[in-house]
């Protein structure tokens, strides 16, 4: 990603630099050539429509090109690859709480293996923050009350700055941390310590404790829909709309079940608004996602990391 952004940036520097140069040169040349002299009068020129059109239309096309290029990069930045390792991020004044799908928890530090796509599923406990890693050229605001996502792939081991980029109060400038990019072997060593078990397993426990299982059963007998394979698939709603179940949809289904009713079911699910911490919610979401099969978080992360490392890391930073 970094490479793409820099390429566009350099392209823009060149294009705008050339335009600026052109104008500066004209300005200075005219300024010198046509300075006031005795008995020489300015030549009145009305204007020229062809010229006006030229210098509106050419910039317009240049702009369109810049737009298109920028949009392509953005689209990539905003669509995480499907098999990325997942990290749940909870921001609060003034710290980052990160939890790997495998269950490791960290504060203000994120360890990741080199060459592996990492997807961040982020929410905030209080105000808006913004997850910013300049070296990876990624930034995404982290909002209370919903998920936002971002992704990146680190291509060189090292320690990188993590900043909070959205002003969030007194210690905004202290809400910083680091991304520690490790070689696969080191990473594995790091991973082996301190896990409380995969997030989806925690989620499964919560699912049972809160009684979700009473309605959402793995057969078709429950009062609620069977959640197997729901995530990532289109859901037909009672009002006729169809939408793809993403993290935000799962989240909303738990917190405000009345908002979108699944077709064919009665709106009997109670709201869990105010009953769950962000961490529990994340675990539930991770669990529901794990029901949709080959997702990371069931421990396959390590394997993938190895595979990626085996491919060798392309350096694009």
């Amino acid at each position, binding site marked *: 990603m970094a490479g793409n952004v820099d390429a566009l940036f350099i392209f823009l520097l060149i294009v705008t630099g050339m335009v600026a140069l052109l104008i500066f040169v004209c300005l200075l040349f005219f300024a010198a050539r046509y300075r006031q002299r005795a008995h020489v009068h300015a030549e009145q020129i009305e204007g020229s429509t062809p010229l006006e059109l030229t210098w509106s239309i050419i910039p317009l096309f240049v702009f369109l090109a810049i737009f298109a290029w920028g949009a392509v990069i953005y689209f990539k930045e905003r669509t995480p690859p499907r098999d990325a390792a997942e990290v749940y991020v909870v921001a609060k004044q003034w710290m980052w709480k990160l939890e790997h799908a495998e269950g490791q928890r960290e504060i203000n530090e994120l360890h990741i293996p080199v060459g592996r796509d990492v997807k961040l599923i982020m929410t905030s406990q209080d105000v808006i923050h913004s997850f910013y890693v300049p070296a990876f050229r990624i930034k995404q605001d982290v909002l209370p009350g919903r998920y936002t996502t971002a992704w990146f792939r680190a291509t060189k081991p090292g320690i990188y700055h993590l900043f909070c980029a959205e002003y969030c109060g007194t210690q905004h400038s202290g809400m910083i941390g680091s991304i520690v990019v490790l070689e696969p072997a080191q990473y594995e060593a790091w991973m082996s310590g301190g896990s409380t078990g995969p997030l989806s397993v925690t989620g499964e426990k919560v699912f049972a404790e809160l009684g979700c299982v009473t309605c959402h059963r793995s057969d078709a007998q429950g009062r609620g829909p069977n959640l197997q394979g729901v995530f990532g698939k289109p859901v037909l709603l009672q009002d006729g709309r169809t939408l793809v179940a993403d993290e935000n949809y799962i989240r909303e289904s738990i917190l*405000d*079940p*009345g*908002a979108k009713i699944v077709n064919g079911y009665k*709106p*009997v*699910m*109670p*709201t869990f608004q105010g009953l769950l911490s962000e961490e529990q919610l994340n675990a539930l979401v991770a669990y529901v996602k794990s029901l949709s099969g080959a997702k990371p978080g069931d421990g396959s992360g390590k394997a993938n990391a190895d595979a990626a490392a085996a491919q060798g890391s392309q350096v694009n930073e």
Partner: protein
Amino acid sequence: MSDSQTTAVQAAAHGHDPALLHHFAEPQQQRDAASLGMWWFLATEVMFFGGLFCAYLIYRLQHFNDFAAASQSLSIKLGAINTAVLIGSSLTVVLAVNAAQRAKRNLLVAYLLLTLVLGSTFLGIKAVEYTDKFKEHHVPGPTFHFVPERMEGHPEQPPIDQRHAEMFFSLYFVMTGLHALHMIVGIGIFVWLLVMAWKGRFTPSYNTPVEIGGLYWHFVDVVWIYLFPLLYLISRHR
């Protein structure tokens, strides 16, 4: 006020045709300026309410069920009556402008009075509605509590997210409150117009205040014309 300046009011006090303000060339120019000024001001007002309409639009689409349920608790009867009252007042206003143009002083006074009566009626009914909401604990705040009325034939309404119902009432109060504030300002203007009319200040050649005061009143009416269906008439068929 610098002494070089003669205001319309002072000029009128001298008993002759209200003087032209010093910086205008002719009365027509002064009239056109005033009316254009009012129109642009109303455009500003459109955007002022526009921000609220925007918030309302977004939330109503996002939380349709909750908004619909909350809307059921508003009284259509009172809302409709108020709509009629306000439309009626628009009629009396336009008749007042007409009377002013034709120099019918008594008629003008009568219409202005009628407008004031109708405007006050509107506010009175609004006050009744507010009181009802207050009694029902539908006013946002710590005491807020909302139980949706279950409509017949639809035993299974989706559960209501209290926060979104509360949000509906927040918007309801802000929007109707701001509208009512405009009504109160309008009533102030019309009381002033009434006094002026009573004193016979308006002539066929000088009635701009009635005219632009009227524009303002109609605008407030138009806002209500949208508020009524938006707030009161969501999915009544349930």
